[in-house]
């Protein structure tokens, strides 16, 4: 059963979008409901790997992992600011650092409140980032922010709770504002350039496994996102 459901979870090519743009409510939800019985998530992971978990809590833990990474990054940016930051930039990064730390702590509280199993505190690896260089910091910030936007955009369909979906939307637009600002610092006018926004005017979305693969080089713990939202 889970194999036959895969098409619902796989990224869909633009052209085929129109074929089932009309599918609605009862439809998708009920097909999923019908399959839930024989689609029980597994929690088994190989030794040393941390599973992000299943269902909505899995999505929250997935977001929590990314926000931990961003918060740790900006905390370091503020702690050891690049010598060549321009006027006002440190003040801005101080604000962004606060936003990301609030996202992190909010998600931690939300997971706990939902009675979910909380992802442990992660140990970041920032050895590839030169915090004394404005350019290095800005490029890393751009990577994290664009990745965050694509992650939340891709996670929307994995959530079953309307409230969580709206919360995710409330966070992702702030990440997109950050992303555009950082991009404009790097190259004025690159806020939505064509390597980020496609020819139909749409931003990117990525699956949890693709996002975690991109984030993994910055995280000591090996993360398994394969069951997020399932």
């Amino acid at each position, binding site marked *: 059963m889970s194999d036959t459901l895969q098409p619902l979870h796989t990224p869909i090519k633009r052209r085929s979008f129109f074929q089932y743009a009309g599918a609605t409510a009862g439809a998708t939800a009920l*097909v999923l409901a019908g399959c839930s019985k024989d689609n029980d998530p597994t929690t088994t992971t190989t030794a040393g790997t941390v599973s992000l978990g299943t269902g909505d809590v899995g999505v929250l833990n997935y977001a929590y992992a990314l926000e931990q990474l961003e918060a740790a990054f900006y905390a370091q940016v503020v702690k050891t600011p690049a010598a060549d930051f321009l006027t006002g930039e440190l003040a801005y990064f101080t604000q962004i650092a606060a936003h990301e730390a609030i996202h992190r702590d909010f998600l931690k509280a939300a997971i706990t409140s939902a009675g979910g199993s909380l992802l442990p505190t992660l140990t970041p690896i920032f050895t590839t980032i030169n915090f004394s260089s404005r350019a290095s910091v800005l490029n890393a910030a751009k990577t994290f922010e664009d990745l965050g936007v694509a992650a939340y955009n891709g996670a929307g369909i994995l959530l079953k709770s*309307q409230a969580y979906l709206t919360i995710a939307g409330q966070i992702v637009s702030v990440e997109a504002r950050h992303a555009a600002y950082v991009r404009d610092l790097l190259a004025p006018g690159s806020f939505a350039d064509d390597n980020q*926004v496609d020819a139909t005017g749409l931003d990117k979305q990525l699956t949890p496994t693709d996002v975690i693969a991109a984030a993994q080089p910055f995280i000591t713990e090996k993360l398994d996102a394969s069951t997020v939202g399932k």
Partner: protein
Amino acid sequence: MNFFQIISEIEKVDPEVYDRLDSRRSIFKHMTGLGQKLSAAAVPLALGSIFNKVYAQTPVGASVNDVLNFALSLEYLESYFYQRSAAGSGASAVTLRGGFSGTNLAAIDLIRTDEANHVTFLRSVLGTAAIADPGAATFDFTGGKGAAGGPFADVLTNPLTYLAVAQSLEDTGVRAYKGGAALLMSNKTVLTAALNIHSVEARHASRLRTMRRAGPMNNAASQGLPVSPYNAAPKSWISGTDNGGAGGSPTGPTAPIYGAGNNTGAPTGVTFDAESNTTQGGAVLTGLPNTTGFPASAFSEAFDEALDVTTVKTIARTFVVNGNNFLA
């Protein structure tokens, strides 16, 4: 894949499933035909579309098409606004374009392209269900509703006013898509597309805010610092209610864009707070651990807010001429 097992599972959720299916006698014939045409991999989606036909009449709030047409309306509003600054759009466009640096003009032109692409995209998704093109005459971007003396009287010649209205439209769009997302959960493909538009609108809003801060002739995002209370020199994100936004005061014409919406209880679990809100999902953000010493403004800035359809329509109609029912 066992079709009848699925029906059985659905029966547990919806005891009337067989009645629903029986009421559409042709459905099993339809199913047989599909089986011959589609590959196994496509069956789950085809199945979805069959049930869609069966369940389509079940009232679950606004339909996906209603939400998409609402989004299309807003994209028309934005698209026609940016068309007014396009090269070759007349004397006012020449004046307007002359007030921007080349890089900033390119940014405006890129936003115009994105918005036109959103119109095209949504029309493609909606097909024959799409609303009619309202036409340029529907809109008065001075906010005067077709009469002289609107709050943005020089919008088509003054770059600062143009950016102020642009920011207002984009921030409205971000809140509208955010509010619409919960109404699109039934269709994963449409939901993802809407989210992908939503974040593009947020990128636009950020760039426009950055330009307002640095000035239309200044390219560098680092130049021009935000000046409280942020009406004229905003941050790249929304801070509190931005003192009513680009309209200039807490009671100005753009204040509703940053204010609270109508919490009518649908969809459940979704509220429409003002942008200054600092309580999310029942959690008081200022009470979170590890946030000691954070600037007070950060707690509302960290979360944008959704807005309901009715409030968004009222805001959008600021730019619709009197006597026109667009977005009414």
